[in-house]
């Protein structure tokens, strides 16, 4: 169980963006291969 994703929700319109905070998480790596456009890397 790793806290490798942070979901940022716009407080005004509910737009949700998932940011990756742990690139070494193998489970998240699998999810990123399945859904390549769902997660974003923070700038």
């Amino acid at each position, binding site marked *: 169980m790793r806290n490798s994703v*942070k979901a940022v929700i*716009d407080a005004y319109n509910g737009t949700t963006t998932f940011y990756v905070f742990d690139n070494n998480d193998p489970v998240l790596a699998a999810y990123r291969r399945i859904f390549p456009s769902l997660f974003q890397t923070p700038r």
Partner: protein
Amino acid sequence: MNPVNGFHVRGPAHAAVEQHARPEHREGPERDPPEIYFGLLTDTMSTSRRASRSSTSAGRDQQRHLLSGHGRHRTGRISPPRSARLRARRSGQAALQRRRQSAEPPVDAEKHSRARRNLAPFLTFDQDPYIVVGDDGRLSWVMDAFTTSEQLSLLQAHRPGRAAPPSTTCATASRR
């Protein structure tokens, strides 16, 4: 008797218009009107137009006219399409301002919980979101999301309460 309160052969309304509603036009020293247009801060709109030489003093071609009203005067220099665009822009700005003033962030972050679970149902979300202020001044809720798996060794079952759907069993690693 005050002509406003009294009666006239043309009616009292005409007297009221004659006394109070005449557009202000004074001869004398030139005054600079405020350079504010289209009722953003005032309902007075100033414009300049070309007048005939016979009606000007000191031989100047330009004469400044001051029109006062509620911003609905036709100046004659703004074409109707441009006037419509200006009105649309003003209404859009007013609507944007109203939306900014009334846009309060939702107090309950659970308002969009269903949408988040639909977006990523394989993640386990924390039930204690916190609010942050971005560089642009907008408020955003941040929720920690966890990846879970049942396929790892050296695990013990862990149920984080309401953080997971009822059908999901989360696991956490433990070192022994």
